[in-house]
């Protein structure tokens, strides 16, 4: 297999995802099949080829340093699953 269950567990941690034990193997297999396909890129010779980050050659897109009124707090908070005192509420962040 191109990828092991342990690899999947490690990547899942990075991505903040968790899988039930029973799903892990099936998921690992499917993911492995895709990685196996992608690994064909190893054969491609890219000697001296620069990476293309953007399809277009645009450079230097900026905005002037002008401030505009912000969005109403009510709208900012309108989708908050939990809020308190004008803030978004989450479980305590251990420092």
């Amino acid at each position, binding site marked *: 297999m191109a990828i092991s269950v342990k690899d999947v567990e490690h990547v899942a941690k*990075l991505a*903040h*995802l968790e*899988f039930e034990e029973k799903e892990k193997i099936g998921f690992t297999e499917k993911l492995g*099949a895709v990685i196996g396909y992608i690994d064909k890129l190893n054969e491609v010779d890219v000697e001296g080829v620069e990476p293309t980050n953007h399809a277009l050659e*645009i450079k230097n897109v900026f905005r002037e340093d002008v401030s505009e009124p912000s969005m109403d707090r009510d*709208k900012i908070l309108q989708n908050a699953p939990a809020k308190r005192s004008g803030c978004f509420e989450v479980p305590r962040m*251990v420092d």
Partner: protein
Amino acid sequence: MKIHDLTAHEAGDRLRERELSSVELTEESYKRIEAVEGRVEAFITLTKEQAMLQASAFDQAMKRGENLPDLAGIPMALKDNMCTDGILTTCGSRMLGNFVPPYDATVTRMLKESGAVIVGKTNMDEFAMGSSTENSAFKITKNPWDTERVPGGSSGGSAAAVAAGEAFYSLGSDTGGSIRQPAAFTGLVGMKPTYGRVSRYGLVAFASSLDQIGPFGKDVEDCAMVMGAISGHDSKDSTSVNRPAEDFTKGMKDGVKGMRIGIPKEFFGEGISEEVKAMVLEGAKLYESMGAVCEEISLPSAKHALSVYYILATSECSSNLARFDGARFGYRAPNYQGFKDMFIKTRSAGFGEEVKRRIMLGTYSLSSGYYDAYYNKGLKVRTLIKREFEKAFEKYDFILTPTAPSVAFQIGEKSDDPLEMYMSDICTVPVNIAGVPALSIPCGFKDGLPVGMQLIGKFFDEATLLRAAYSFEQASGVHRQRAQLAGGGENEI
């Protein structure tokens, strides 16, 4: 002719000639929706109240004798990954099942300013990841040509809505073929503009360097009209290009005499059904009969496009989807211990399997030790693909290929094997990687199911594609067929 079978420009003509009011037109659309939506399931949200207000506003303006844009008063649909202020925007995901954006996407705003009537938000593969719309968390959209088959994806809802006569045109998004492939499966014209042509501000990002918004229409003129209304520089999108406004219908009827068409052999290999190949090559012959010259060309790096796509797109999406954690909006898991657990449980329950697979693949490609072999390698092979297209366009006006390897497949047929599903994109994906424009037009039928042909053009040369597509459709007449879905909106015009 049933009203719902009219093209958008035909409906527009009726409005301008005052044969129909926008309110009448919109009511027709809703009648049709009522009649067929149970079988098609193209929509997640219907916005009747707002639509009727938009329709009356148009009618009032007409009464005042105002000069209105071409798209004004015509009912349309938006894919549910485009933000609409105050209206549910789910991206086909449980993660955003209750998300109401407090702002409009730029295209939403532009359409509203053009007087468009938005009838609803359409179903899609979750977060635009899929080729069949079977990955939606809410419903499976059916192909109006055969309701046991998929409409394609990820913009399946937008395609089905137009093909079923529920809206006169719609917008979809295309990252690896998500407009073109559903257009092929549903007998519509669908266009992915040049990257940077249409603002992405307000489009929930899947793969930032590949995503583009584009139109579905019943014919080429519809697409050209919509392109004119949604294209343009947006200061809110740093990747949108600053070019003067363009009339995409200009030169559309000028014919293809003298055009040089490249036919890349790599797009006609194994993996593409024989009938589709044959039909596209017939299309090439039709072009020759109209005075164009077709030649076989080679784009050798195209065979790597799918791999490049599944590295770059998934890497970008793994980052774009990291904000979905239950803290500020969207779904939050009901039980957790601490914020980290809340993130993990929310994401694991809120995302479907395909989305999780792509996030994992992308995270893997970017992770320490793998970046060079995967992500960076992908960026370099991208350079090769782009260069090959650029070289081809030095000699050819456009490139002709099949859009999809087959006609619409059965619901459930490919959903178990991700790789097989990914293969649906083999002809469309190279286009997004290079950033060039492309469209799909119907070129025939196989067993009553539409077959699509893809035209790929130079950067910012949508005009050539529309012109070539227009010539084809006028000569072939394929686009005039409509899916036979009986019911509602029976008014004739």
